[in-house]
């Protein structure tokens, strides 16, 4: 090893040690747990090695419910939140007056605590003995009948969770997209204007391709974030998510470790590895699709 690369390794050492300790080792550990059948955390013993943990998890109706919930969350919230964020940032970039004020307002949810936001949503949506909640009051005014969004039908709960998630992830996307839009060279817009390009065409043919790497980044991180959703559901529906049919995959893993049915690190590990595989697959598919649509300068 020459002097230069020895130096490089020394510089990298702190990062490598911490990554190894807190990322690589747990990953290996989780993989090992996930194949140890009947592991007992008190006695640290297990019966044998095999795929039973995976089989159990995949046949567990609570897990399948969690996968279904997570999938709906991902498929619905990522595209919708990205599109709305694009519209908001495009709007923000085209105004001059009060732009800073609006930017701050749109960014507020990002600095607000998840549970505090959950509380606000409870006030908006929750139906109690005393009031039907603000949203129901509006629905009533429009001639509809009240819906119990927090303890009611599945679709209503899912809708609240999706709206909540979109609202929470929006500010970061708006922030990133606004700066991406500001970085597009004004000359392209001037050139397009001189050539008589319509606003819509400028947006789809020039703006979007120019910021496509950022949009792609937001979609990838959005997918990963939505797959790892958990605290949002807790903020709205409490800790007993299985009973509320609102559990997510990460929620299921948590329950297997520490919940009422907890104490099963092997099942939790198997579920975690399955989640890992799903996210990896989706991200790879995303990357493949992006090759066609994303333009890197």
């Amino acid at each position, binding site marked *: 090893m020459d002097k230069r690369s020895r130096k490089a390794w020394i510089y990298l050492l702190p990062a490598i040690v911490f990554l190894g300790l807190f990322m690589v080792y747990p990953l290996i550990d989780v993989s090992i747990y996930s194949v140890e059948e009947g592991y007992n955390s008190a006695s640290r013993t297990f019966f044998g090695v095999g795929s039973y943990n995976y089989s159990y998890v995949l046949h567990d109706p609570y897990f399948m419910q969690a996968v279904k919930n997570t999938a709906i969350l991902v498929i619905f919230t990522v595209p919708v939140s990205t599109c709305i964020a694009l519209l908001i940032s495009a709007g923000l970039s085209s105004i001059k007056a009060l732009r800073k004020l609006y930017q701050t307002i749109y960014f507020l949810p990002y600095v607000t605590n998840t549970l505090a936001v959950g509380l606000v949503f409870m006030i908006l949506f929750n139906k109690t003995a005393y009031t039907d909640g603000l949203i129901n009051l509006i629905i009533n005014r429009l001639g509809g009948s009240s819906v119990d969004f927090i303890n009611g039908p599945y679709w209503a709960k899912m809708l609240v969770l999706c709206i909540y998630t979109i609202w929470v992830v929006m500010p970061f996307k708006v922030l990133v997209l606004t700066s991406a839009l500001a970085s597009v060279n004004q000359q392209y817009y001037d050139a397009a*204007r001189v050539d008589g390009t319509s606003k819509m065409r400028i947006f789809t043919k020039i703006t979007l391709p120019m910021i496509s790497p950022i949009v792609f980044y937001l979609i990838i991180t959005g997918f990963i974030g939505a797959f790892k959703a958990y605290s949002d559901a807790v903020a709205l529906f409490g800790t007993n998510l299985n009973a509320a049919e609102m559990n997510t995959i990460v929620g299921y893993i948590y329950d297997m470790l520490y919940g009422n049915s907890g104490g099963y690190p092997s099942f939790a590990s198997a579920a975690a590895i399955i989640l890992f595989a799903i996210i990896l697959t989706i991200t790879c598919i995303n990357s493949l699709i992006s090759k066609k649509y994303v333009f890197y300068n």
Partner: protein
Amino acid sequence: MKVTLQNLTKVFPGRSKNNHADVVAVNDFSFEIADGELIGLLGPSGCGKSTALNLICGLQEPTSGSIFFDEDDVTNLPPEDRGVGLVFQNYALYPHLTAMQNILFPLQNIKGAERLSKADMQKRAHEVAALVQIDELLDRKPAELSGGQQQRVAIARALAKMPRILLLDEPLSNLDARLRLQTREEIRRIQRETRITTVFVTHDQEEAMSISDTIVVMRSGVVEQIGKPQDVYDNPMNLFVATFLGTPPINVFSGEISGGKLLIGKEALFETNGFPDREVYVGIRPEGFIPDGNGPLHLNLRNIEVMGRDVTVVSTHGASVNPVIRSIISADSSIDVSATEVSFSVKRAKVFVFDKDTEARII
């Protein structure tokens, strides 16, 4: 198409903290660009030439004054309704589109009855691509093209929609010296072939002189002189125009008119009958010197640069405004390199005399 600018003025409000004074980028422009003419807007950077171009194009609105295309008042028309083609200094080619898609882009914007069929668009794009000689490169993206090729694509894109006027904003400034020479001839050729009225902005006087039918010399938002390049060079109206045109630049001396003679120091260059005595600047073009042992102008010889075709004599003089004086003389003339002094007489037509206060030309 004829373009007429009438009292065109553009004022940018002062925005810096210490200086609230408004900036007059273009001050009371009035001139006419004849149909099919190539006009060069020439001036040092910051003189308002790009602003003038943006006003013609419509990207900026004038503070006052009007612009006519033929007889149509286009002052308040947005750029898309003016039918102008603009080539940007950095080309502004869309980087995610191929050369072909870039050229097609303006055509695809056209709506309604004037919209061409897909086949006609392709045909038009290939025509302009052939005109600027980039037929081979149409599938490439801008990043895969050289500066000169990008320049051609940009011109093709501007020409594709058959604009009434072509505007070029410092089109050669991003090219290397050899390519610049080649491309400027190319622009001239394309302009001749299409007979399109063209406005060309540059700070390079050689560039402007070599391709323009007419040059407009600007300084600080004001038109200093308009005319055919050779006329402006031979008859500058003031000291600024005289010093701005020509390489190497004109040699300027402090002098005076006294007793009917033009004096530099104590040396009388020629008779100036009928001019009252005053302090003046004397400008002598480098090619205006004739080696003459009995000549009136005695310069301290510094060194001699041999260029092959001709010889540049570098010398100094106490009254010279510039640190050195450059005179270009024929390579046949014999100059004693070891001498400390060299004497010249001057060609009358190459000597300009300017008033010291107003800097306006008097002789």
